[in-house]
Structure formats: structure tokens, C-alpha cells
């Protein structure tokens, strides 16, 4: 009933090919955008902005980037943390070495640098796939970690290897307050999500999906595997690089290579798998699940007024979190996005299912 598209006639090709062909979807998206841009800034506290929304938005962007590579093109990557580090350190070096550079431009250029690095580390994907590619990208992760903690030039010779981001100023506005930082991240995420949605609907996305589903068949029908795979690495790395720059500049403010270690790679890969491979919505859902659930679990006993020791809470957090990951993968291996799809199908028929 809620999702019944009966009566919505498409009278032009443009309407038929719209991103959201169903009226209800457009309504929901508009509602979410209104909530994100208007309601949340009005009602949220500083804690919610800084500890919940900003990390969630940035991680969504990173998960989105990885999803393009893993979910749409089928190339498994464990180097996400390393690529985020490339974005972060590239933005830092650009800002430090080119005085007066607009940080937004620095973020985009950092994305560009990450694209180049991503293509270089994507080259092995031309010859190997699956687990072997995972190992090759794992090497990228360790190599990049090593570079940033060893080569002093990248950290501007900081004695401790920890660097501090300069303040973000755009068009005369300083992005110091949590609300502004939040809006900046949200605006970037929305722009990138729209771009991603259109990329995967277009020629490039189809090329990727064909490669993912069967690369030999794709090659036979005329898709160049080199173009398909490297373009996926390039676009995905661009997203991840921008996310890394945001994570460093907006969220942490000051960071060391440990902030982008192998655990970061794993957690973003988990976001993509739990959220749903090959789904834009899934990236957001997965990021919410992985970043927010541990915090929720950690604070739940206190809200409920149960006195448990700090150590016990953190052990429980790991156990319940792990159990929930397994649970969700068992009940719906295709991810949270798939659950939403099932829900949508049910809402179409409700209240008269047959």
C-alpha cells in the first residue's frame, strides 16, 4: 500500500530513467535530506555531532568508496586504511606546503593523489583475483603504513610522527563548530553518493558489474578488463582518499599512522559486507551498524542503570557486537540493504499480503 506505484505513469524517457522512479522513494529521500540538513542541526547536542554523526558520515563515504570496488566490480581490497592514510597525508602536505590553499580543493586533490596510488596498487588485479588480490592489497596496506611512519617528509619532520591538521576555512567561514563540520561532511557525502549512484547506473557501472559477474564473459562481449578494473580502483580510491582527508581533518584533527591501520581496513570491509555488497544504501547502513552499535552497546548498561565494571562492559561490547554480526549475516547474507528491500516489498502489499 505504501509503496504501490500504480497510477504513476512515466510519460518520458527521462522520467523512466530517473534515479528514483517511484514517487514514494523521492518523498523518503527528500524527508531524509530534510532531517539531515535541518532537523539534526536544530536538535543535536555536541556529543551527537562529534562522536556519532561526523564519524558515521565519514565512514559512510569510505564504505561507499570500497563498495564501488568490492560490491560493484568484485575486486576484494584490504587496503582501505592505507588509501585513507594517503588521502589524509596528501591533504596535510598540500595544506602545509601550499599556503593559502582552499582545504576543499586540498581534499579533492588528496582524492586525486589517492586515485593515482590506488591505480598503482590496482595493477595486480589484472592478473590475480579473489583471495590472491586480497593479499596483494593487504601488502599495500602494510606498505603505506610503513611509508607514513618511516619517511619523515610526509609528516613534515614531526618529531613524534603525529601531525596536526590546520584549521579548515572556506569562503571566510571557519569550520570549527561541530554543526558546521557536520554540515560540511553531510554535503560532501550527499554529493558523492549522488555521483556514485549515477556512476553505477551508467556505462562505467555496467562495465564493472559485468566484470564482477564473470570477467571472461565480459571480455568476450567487448569489455576491456584493464579499463574496468583500474577504473574501479581509481574511482573507489578517490572516494576513500577524500574520506581519509575528512577523517583526519574534520574528525581527529591530529593523527598518527595508527589511525589508519589494518583494523580500519577490516572495519570498512565489514561495513560493506554487512550493509550489502553492491548497494549505495547498504554502505550507509553498514557504516551505521559498525560505527554506532559498539558505542550504543558500551553505553547501554549505564543508561539502564546497571552497574557493571568498565572492563566487563567492553568485553560484553565485543561479544555482543560479534554475535550480532554473525546473526545478521546468517539471517540475511545479502546485507542490511537487502532487509530494507524485503521490507519495501512487504509494504507494497500491506495490509493484504497474499
Amino acid at each position, binding site marked *: 500500500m505504501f509503496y504501490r506505484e500504480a497510477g504513476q505513469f512515466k510519460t518520458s524517457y527521462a522520467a523512466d530513467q530517473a534515479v528514483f522512479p517511484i514517487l514514494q522513494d523521492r518523498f523518503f529521500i527528500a524527508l531524509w535530506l530534510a532531517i539531515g540538513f535541518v532537523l539534526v542541526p536544530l536538535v543535536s547536542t*555536541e*556529543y551527537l555531532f*562529534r*562522536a556519532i554523526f561526523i*564519524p558515521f558520515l565519514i565512514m559512510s563515504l569510505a564504505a561507499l568508496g570500497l563498495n564501488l570496488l568490492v560490491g560493484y566490480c568484485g575486486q576484494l581490497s584490504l587496503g582501505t586504511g592505507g588509501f585513507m592514510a594517503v588521502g589524509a597525508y596528501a591533504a596535510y602536505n598540500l595544506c*602545509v606546503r601550499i599556503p593559502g590553499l582552499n582545504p576543499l580543493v586540498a581534499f579533492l586533490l588528496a582524492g586525486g593523489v589517492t586515485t593515482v596510488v590506488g591505480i598503482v596498487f590496482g595493477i595486480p588485479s589484472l592478473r590475480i583475483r579473489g583471495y590472491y588480490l586480497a593479499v596483494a592489497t593487504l601488502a599495500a596496506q602494510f606498505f603505506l603504513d610503513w611509508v607514513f*611512519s618511516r619517511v619523515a617528509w610526509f609528516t613534515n619532520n614531526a*618529531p*613524534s*610522527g*603525529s601531525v*596536526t591538521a*590546520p*584549521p579548515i576555512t572556506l569562503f571566510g567561514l571557519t569550520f*570549527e563548530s561541530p554543526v558546521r563540520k557536520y554540515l560540511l561532511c553531510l554535503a560532501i557525502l550527499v554529493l558523492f553518493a549522488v555521483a556514485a549512484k549515477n556512476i553505477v547506473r551508467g556505462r562505467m557501472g555496467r562495465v564493472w558489474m559485468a566484470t564482477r559477474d564473470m570477467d571472461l564473459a565480459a571480455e568476450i562481449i567487448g569489455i576491456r578488463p584493464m579499463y574496468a578494473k583500474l577504473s574501479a580502483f581509481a574511482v573507489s580510491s578517490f572516494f576513500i582518499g577524500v574520506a581519509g582527508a575528512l577523517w583526519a581533518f574534520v*574528525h*581527529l*584533527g*591530529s*593523527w*598518527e599512522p*595508527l*589511525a589508519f*591501520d589494518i583494523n580500519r581496513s577490516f572495519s570498512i570491509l565489514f561495513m560493506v559486507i554487512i550493509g550489502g555488497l553492491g548497494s549505495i544504501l547498504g554502505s550507509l547502513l553498514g557504516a551505521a551498524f559498525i560505527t554506532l552499535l559498539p*558505542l550504543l552497546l*558500551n*553505553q*547501554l548498561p*549505564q*543508561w*539502564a*542503570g546497571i552497574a557493571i*565494571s*568498565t*572492563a566487563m*562492559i*567492553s*568485553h560484553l561490547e*565485543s561479544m555482543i557486537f560479534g554475535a550480532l554480526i554473525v546473526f545478521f549475516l546468517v*539471517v*540475511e547474507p545479502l546485507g542490511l540493504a537487502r*532487509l530494507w528491500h*524485503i*521490507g519495501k516489498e*512487504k509494504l507494497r502489499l500491506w495490509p493484504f499480503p497474499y
Partner: protein
Amino acid sequence: MEKIFSPKSLVLGVAAAGALLAAAQAFAQANEQFVPALVYRSGPYAPNGVPFANGFSDYLTLVNERDGGINGVKIVSEECETGYSTDRGVECYERLKGKGPTGAAAFSPLSTGITYALTEKAPVDKIPLITMGYGRSESVDGSVFPWNFPLLGTYWTAADVIIQYIGQMNGGLDKLKGKKIALVYHDSPYGKEPIPLLNERAKRHGFELLTIPVTHPGVEQKAAWLQVRQNRPDYVLLWGWGVMNSTAIKEAVAVNYPRDHMIGVWWAGAEPDVLPAGEDAKGYNSIALQHSAGQIAVHADILKNVYDKGKGAGKREEVGHVLYNRGMLNAMLTVESIRTAQGKYGKKPMTGEQVRWGIENLNLDQNRIRQLGFAGMLQPLKVSCNDHEGVRHARIHQWDGAKWKFVSDWIEGDNTLLRPMVDEAARKYAKEKNITPGCLKG
């Protein structure tokens, strides 16, 4: 599936969580001082994090139980588990900073990475950071870092004292010429922090410095100790943490490196570091920045007022361990800073801004230290805007197989060497961040 994810139960769940949140926030009461504690009781660093957290918590309980709070203002504390990870630490900081009637008094981040991240946030929120013996070494300069207080020495001070001690053992610092000193360090900002100072000392005295990094968390160090075996340095400085320390001692045994030529930083000189290595750890040295192992007057009070009432955070027999004492010292300095602030602003809960004034004007003389029950552990300290360290004295202690005992007298960090480095690094930071150096008033 729809049974598990019925929308109704979801709505109810969210509503219930919201109600609980509201109830929790209504608990805040008037005459209380909130003191947050960032701890790590789980993860690879837990063996060291737990005693520290216990010492911190027990001292606060002692002040509440024995004195009824600070001038009648009860202390409420809440722990938040950071697991030594920077993003979790930032989340904990955001979670705790606004609690209590006046917000958090001061944060002790207990991790160099978290300290670096919070250094950006503290001036905005006006909450001081007490980074006792760790954090940014250049934050000694209070005109550039008004909110950071590396009380009782920094890593640079610690490294300086260790080199002076090695000099003493060899009959003078000039005798270090041509010697080889290796730094085996945890590969993080924490481990890299002493390198500039050691380079400076190496230049001055003509010894050779080898820097050997060990990857976090440090359970795999074969390669590092192979380098030690090849180069045979005269001394090994260990800048390790958690499981890395006991592993390092075992590896030293494996390559037959004499333990009495190893000197750890204060994070690498507690019972959890040497006990797992057993008999092999005998002779291993470490620096003690003021804190010492064993019990003094204040411990008797803790046992009587906290443990006898069943309110202790840890095990009774661990009271007086090295890191327990360190945590206790950290809590004491926080409490005394609040007390100092109350002297100026009145006997009520203090805001972070007022506590900052209290730390900057903290002055503990011999007499006061005796009153507090810390005689024998602490040297008199006086903090000022120019000197956020307060005191630069430290001793070296050695593990004799059963307990720590001191092998050196008090050694003072050489300020003629430290200060120019602090000034230069602070100036560089101020320039990068567009800060005009200046002391804060009030």
C-alpha cells in the same frame, strides 16, 4: 524474519532507550565535582592500564570517604574505556566532558595519540589536560599550550635523566664518547617522542644512537633484537608499553643481552612488565618519574578507608604497585589542583577553566606533601605558566627479582638542554596553528 524485526518492537525499543537516556541525565546533582577517567581495562595494554585505573579510582574514593570530598564537594567519577585507540578516546572525551554540574574538571588521556587529538579540542571546550609524564614534550611551555600539563616530567625529561644516569655509571657524561646506545621503541608517537632529545644528547656527547622500532602491539620483536645482537649497543633504552615490555625482556634473554644494561621508560618499569619474564628480568632498570613502588603513608589510609570498607577498585595486594602509585599520584594532583582552584573561586564545584588556573598555580611544598601522605615519593613541585612540568626530578629503579629498588639518587633533567628544545618545538607549533603565545589569566 518479520517476527524478529517487527516494527512495533523496534519503535518500543527506541522509545525505551530514549526514556532511559533522559532518566540518566536527570541524575546530575548540585554539589559535586565530576572527574572523568579515560582507562583501558581491556586489550593488549590492559595489564598496565588496570592498575593505573585502580590507583586513580581508589584515591578519589579515599578523598570522598576520608575527607567527605574536596572541601565538602563530593567527587563523582566515571570511567570510559578507550582501548588505547585514538578515535575511541575522542568519543570518550566527548561523552564525558559535559557531565556533572560544572562539566569535567580535567582529563588524563593516558595515551600520547589521544593527547595529541585532545590538544586540539581542549582549548575550545576549556578543559585542561593532565598528561603526567607523557604527551607532547613541548607542552611544558604554558604560553603556547595553556591547557596541557605534562606534570612531573615529559618523555624528553625522562630520556635526559636516563642519559645522565648512564653518564654517572660510566664516570661522567664525557665518557659516553664512542659508545652505542640503542632505543627500542613502540612505533607510535609515544615511542618516537624521545628521539629528538636523544639525538641532541648524542650530538653533544658523541655517542651513537640506534633507533629500532617495534610495531604495535609489540608481541613480535625478533627482528628488532636481531639488530641489537648484531650491533651490540652498550645500553638499550626500552620505550615499550604493555605486552611489548615483557616480550622485550624475553627477547633480550634470547639474544643474551644483559638486563642490567637495559633501561626502560616509566611505562616500561612496572610489575606486569617484569613478572611474566620471571627470573630473567632480574637486573632490569627503569626510570621512575617521582612515583615509586611500595607503600607509604597514603596507602595505609587507602587500605583503611577504601579497602576495609569494601570499596576498592582492585585487589588489596596490588595496592602500592608501580602503576597503581602512578594512577594514585595522577588523581592526587587532580584533586589538589581542584583544591587550589577552590582557594581562589570558592568552595564549590569548579569548571574546567577554574581547574586550569588551579593546576597552573599548583604549589606542593615538602610540608604539604607530608600532610597528604606522599613524603618519600614526591619532590616539591611548583607549576607556573612558563613551566607546566612543575618538577624535573627522577630516579632509576631496578628489579631484583621480587621488588623494585632504587639504584640512583634523584637526578634532575638538564633544563639548559631541554628548554631550548621545548621553546623551539612550541614556537613551531604556534606558527603552524597561528597561536600568539601568551599566558592565560584567571
